């Protein structure tokens, strides 16, 4: 039997994936009064808090912008970065014990284990999508315009999605064998938070540090998303294609590692 690649697996399990993502999101808000509204309320609160803190308390300015720039601008730029970072932070933390906390799916039933990873990634992206809409609306309220370039966000995000999916598969595989992974991931996530251009624009860094951020795969997506929404910058087609190719290769490698290790999972849990 030929090995499936990850795209085939995604298509084949389409129904199940949808069901799992739906369940995942619903289980998060199950029993709460606002229910699904929280997906909207949470990012709104976040955006408000950032606006207040950074315009009133820290009176920060975004990069080298003129002093005349508005108070909400910092919050918008920050929020754009945080949306991307949160996807990474949430998926990375959840994937560390993703498989070991669902032993039933490994031991008791025949189950395409890759679905768990797709579920985690999918949930994170749906939440991020809602945040993105709020970001675009906030940007519109502040500057009175929506850039047509926002239509390219799905393209940028799809390669980011594939990248994250690969990471989730890889981390969840390692997590079965190394129980310390959860702690390691927590530390790495905090480090990456400050290594990514979330609180500052990339070009504010001194040249010596720039390359560190450049190899950080989050950095490009953060900058691209941010400037697509706020400035209407569209990345070149070449860079999009290269990014996508790299993501696909990376994801396929992670997928194969997961498939190969799958048969050992039942004995390790």
């Amino acid at each position, binding site marked *: 039997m030929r090995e499936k690649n990850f795209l085939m697996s995604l298509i084949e399990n389409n129904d199940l994936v*949808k*069901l799992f993502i739906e*369940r995942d999101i619903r*289980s998060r808000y*199950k029993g709460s009064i606002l229910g699904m509204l929280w997906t909207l309320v949470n990012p709104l609160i976040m955006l408000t808090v950032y606006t207040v803190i950074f315009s009133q308390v820290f009176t920060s300015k975004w990069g080298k912008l003129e002093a005349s720039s508005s108070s909400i601008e910092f919050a918008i730029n920050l929020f754009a970065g945080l949306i991307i970072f949160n996807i990474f932070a949430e998926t990375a933390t959840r994937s560390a014990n993703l498989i070991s906390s669902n032993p039933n799916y490994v031991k008791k039933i025949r189950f395409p284990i890759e679905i768990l990873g797709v579920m985690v990634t999918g949930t994170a992206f749906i939440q991020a999508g809602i945040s993105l809409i709020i970001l675009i609306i906030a940007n519109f309220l502040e500057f009175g315009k929506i850039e047509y370039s926002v239509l390219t966000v799905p393209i940028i995000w799809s390669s980011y999605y594939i990248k994250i999916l690969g990471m989730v598969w890889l981390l969840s595989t390692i997590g079965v064998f190394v129980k310390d992974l959860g702690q390691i991931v927590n530390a790495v996530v905090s480090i990456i938070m400050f290594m990514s251009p979330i609180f500052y624009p990339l070009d504010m860094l001194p040249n010596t540090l720039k390359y560190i951020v450049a190899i950080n795969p989050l950095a490009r997506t953060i900058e691209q998303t941010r400037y697509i929404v706020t400035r209407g910058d569209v990345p070149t087609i070449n860079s999009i294609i290269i990014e996508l190719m790299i993501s696909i290769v990376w994801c396929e490698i992670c997928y194969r590692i997961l498939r190969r290790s799958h048969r050992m999972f*039942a*004995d390790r849990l």
Partner: protein
Amino acid sequence: MNNTETEKKQFSIEVNGVSKNYKIFGRKRDWLKQMLWGKRKKYFKDVKALDNVDMNIEKGKVYGIVGKNGSGKSTLLQIICGTTSASKGSVRARGKIAALLELGSGFDPDFSGRENIYLNAMLMGLTKQQVEEKIEKIIAFADIGDYIDEPIRTYSSGMVVRVAFAVIANVEADILIIDEALAVGDVYFTQKCMRFIQRFKENGTILFVSHDTNTVISLCDTAILLDKGNKVYEGAPKDVMERYTRNLKCKSDEELNEGNARNREKENNDRASQRTILNRESKYDEEWFKSHIKKKKENYKIVDTLKYGEDVSKVESFGGKKAKIIEVKIKNLNQTEQGGAVIEGGELVHLIIKVKAIEQIERVIIGFLLKNDKGIVLLGDNTGDTNENKEYIASNGTMITAEFIFTMPLLPKGEYSITSSVARGTLESHNILHWVNDSLILVSHCTSIAAGLAGVAMHSIKLTSTK
């Protein structure tokens, strides 16, 4: 079985030389060391869960797997389902497998029964649309009313198994794998499952794990007995179950001594408090009974006994080192002459079991079971509750005779057997000393019983019509 024969038959499941080892690492770090050292050093302990098991299951057959806890049954099922891989050997299954491995294993407790039906059915390969077409049928099969929309965690275990079984019954699988799960269902549901299984057999194959003798015997075509990961025996369910119960009942000597110590303690307590006499002798008006069944008497020329008084040492038995069942015989209470006894159903019969004590035995219990030809126990009793048991100490060499006088029920046409045993201890805790299967065979020619495993005297049957 030779190769050409194997090729001709179409097997649903082929299990070839499957072994499963679990590597047990003392500490987490040992596992890391093992990774680094590869095969040059060994840091783990091997635990064999399955050892070279072969099994071929034909299409349309019901196969039972029997064995003590930890004998490797579940591991074998997991390997066949593909949730665990075998360390050695291969498994091949033809067709779609639907498995009910453990109670509610594929269920999410926070979601409703309906949602879990979707989840489980889709995991078994149905598309969402197919599930939508079948959902009503599945819910009807589960038959748990409005609970279907409540979260699974509020369910009783019986309800969980209803839902789980309803799903696997409706996914159109070719192979059904059921692991002890049915035991928690109530009678109605179990009957429903049995009917389903009977229908399913026509096209599909079933693999079945159970501890329940009656279920295995009535359901399976073939059974295998696993012990410590080895296939000990494969054959007719009745034989397998007999071997299985024998394994269970032969306890080791340590357990036996331990048990005796406990018994003595308990006995002293009993003595201090009270002495009740538990002689169970029912008052029975035989004449009255006979007058009522007389009319139908022509119809039941009933029970002949074979092997009357035959030497039981030739019959299959186990134990027998400390005490030995020498003779088992049954006769009509009113019959005085020796020889082949004719027993009509519904009368008092006299069952005699003679046991020779080879060692000194305290607290002897002698018992018997009447089984039908499928091995299902119809009735049975023992001397355990009687007063004599407490005081009774048989010194070595004595002959102990147990006598049971009881009403023989009317038995449908067929063969019946009496299994007899001798044990020591109390009813709660005892050790079987000698167990003889089929120590006596009874043949019934009765045709007057309309339905059921045994009949009682029908005192009156009337048909009236009114306008």
